[in-house]
């Protein structure tokens, strides 16, 4: 029978220490563990995560497509038109929920007269969303979304179609580069509430081990890689 939260906590921690035949971690082992947290050592270098910028962008696009996303490489001026065109190509209505991000606000959305954008979180009825991305990871063609007032998480998940605007300069080599950027931007001790690391549209292999897209999250993912 439980003796209360503090007793339960002590029971587990003391059980661990008893099994490891020591008391609370002290001395050099503690210093080593603290140092690991302060300056995390990297694992074995992965060659494909360490390419020069141009090849990195190429690799990102290739893996994103292999993971069933579509990619369009555009200039900043072309972004609004490509969003409209993508929706039209897929017979979707010209409306979307868009992240209330200052970075997206800079594009000339007014040029698309037919396109209706609502800024805010996604609702169940939204068919498409437009968001930015905190980073792209070339290693696996993966997008990184950091939550906050300018990027509600529901935009990444609820609509059937997710359109992502990603600047070439935000494409990094591997996961470790994302962690470095997160620490720089948010501080080492304060991760964003949710970091969604997303590789292609939602999928499931739960029926006969055969991949079907659009299990619970978006069925389609279109990435606009913006030339600098």
């Amino acid at each position: 029978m439980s003796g209360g939260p503090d007793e339960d906590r002590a029971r587990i921690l003391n059980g661990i220490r008893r099994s490891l035949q020591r008391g609370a971690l002290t001395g050099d082992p503690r210093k080593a563990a603290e140092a690991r947290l302060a300056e995390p050592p990297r694992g074995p270098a992965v060659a494909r995560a360490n390419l020069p910028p141009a090849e990195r962008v190429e690799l990102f696009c290739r893996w994103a497509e292999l993971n069933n996303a579509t990619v369009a490489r555009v200039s900043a001026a072309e972004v609004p038109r490509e969003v409209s065109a993508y929706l039209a190509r897929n017979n979707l209505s010209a409306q979307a929920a868009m992240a209330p991000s200052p970075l997206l606000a800079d594009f000339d959305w007014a040029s698309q007269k037919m396109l209706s954008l609502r800024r805010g979180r996604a609702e169940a009825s939204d068919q498409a969303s437009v968001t930015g991305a905190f980073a792209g990871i070339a290693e696996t063609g993966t997008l990184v979304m950091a939550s906050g007032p300018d990027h509600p998480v529901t935009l990444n998940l609820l609509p059937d179609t997710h359109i992502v605007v990603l600047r070439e300069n935000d494409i990094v080599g591997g996961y470790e580069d994302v962690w470095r950027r997160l620490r720089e931007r948010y501080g080492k001790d304060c991760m964003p509430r949710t970091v969604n690391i997303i590789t292609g549209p939602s999928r499931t292999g739960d029926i006969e081990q055969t991949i079907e897209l659009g299990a619970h999250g978006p069925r389609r993912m279109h990435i606009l890689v913006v030339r600098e």
Partner: protein
Amino acid sequence: MQSTAHDFKGNVGAALADPNLQDSLAKLKTGFSERRRQAAERLPEFEALRDRARDIKNHALANLDFYLEEFERKVTALGGQVHWAPTAEDARRIIADLCRGVGARTIAKSKSMVAEEIGLNEHLEALGIAPIETDLGEYIIQLRREPPSHIIAPAVHLTKDQVADTFLEHHSRLGFTRRLTERNDLVAEARQVLRQKFLDADVGLTGANFLVAETGSSMLVTNEGNADLSNTLPRMHIVLASIEKVIPTLEDAAVLLRVLARSATGQESSAYTTLNTGPRRPGDLDGPERYHVVLLDNGRSSVLGTEMQDMLRCIRCGACMNHCPVYGAIGGHAYGWVYPGPIGAVLTPQLIGVEEAGDLPNASTFCGRCESVCPVRIPLPRLMRHWREREFERHLTPRAVRQGLALWAYLARRPRLYRAVTGIANRALALLGRSDGRFGTLPLAGGWTRYRDFPAPQPGGTFHAQWKRGRWNRGRWNRGQGSRKR
């Protein structure tokens, strides 16, 4: 869940006779394992990453108390709360209290093996709280009231037609009255049914693949996005994770992620990897208002420091079962409890006792494929051998087996007698089995011959006799060239 591991042999008989199961298992042999091989070949650093993954988990286990306390400190600093559950009963009580605290009626649940381990769903249902499984495979088996048969593909034992029948039975009252025949239609129907349940749920409950001490984040890897809807839409997010899931840093997570998806499904990366750190922040337009992490021990701390500690490195990828000839023949349900396959044969006796589950470690050919593909290099055959020894020590082995082994040990300690007895037996069997080279029945060997023939010895006498005659040239033997003369 109620274990049937004690009736392993009965379960195996039923599994081998189930045609739907055998159809499903046939696909396993070419699916996951082939895709894993290709993914590993595409990444030249894969073996070095496996070594590092093993070292990371070993380091985390050696400093487990420290990293758990650091994790708790970070979670608390960002407005979340950590609960410590020494036993399954404690975890059930903590979660039930949290749910009742917000007046929860339904819970959107993302697949969690730890939740299966503690029998959470049954407990919540008894309290009038409805847990809704949202991973497609888990949803299917929840409708069928079955346990999962694989740790990453819970409905891998079912065919598409069985899923179609299940959906028709349960969805027709929701207006879906057509029996579907295509996989994508089945997925779309489940999506539609479950979407509303996500929107209505009061609590989202997920597991965690890793807990990151450095940042106080829970990390979750899925393909469907169901876990993300579960931890975003309801007003409370509960993470249920066992204590050995804690790792030091995000850099360590990067290494483990690189081996996890490739080992599990052969993907370069799963579709969704999510870090959650505390509840919604000021200014956020969505996300849960409360964030709780329940840390379960349930006997794990007592495994630390023992020769079985290596099992705690497991990252639950399922590669060992995907590559196991025994799992491939009998599927997951035959193992009788939550964790099947080689890792189940090692974990289950630890978690529910060798008396109940002592038969599971015997279900191994010791081919070693599980160890050769394990991303954190768990020596699964050695750990199974450990349980076999415990089973024998506790006199749980059947009497006939014990007596047989005792007789063999008596003879083996007396070389001349051993040679005489085996020589007679060999000649007798060779003589009797001469006509067709095998036995369909054999006295004292009914346990063997009931399921397969016993081979008759080849001419030439026992191995000992052949060795003495010099038929097995030593150099040839050492080079592993076999016995045939050139």
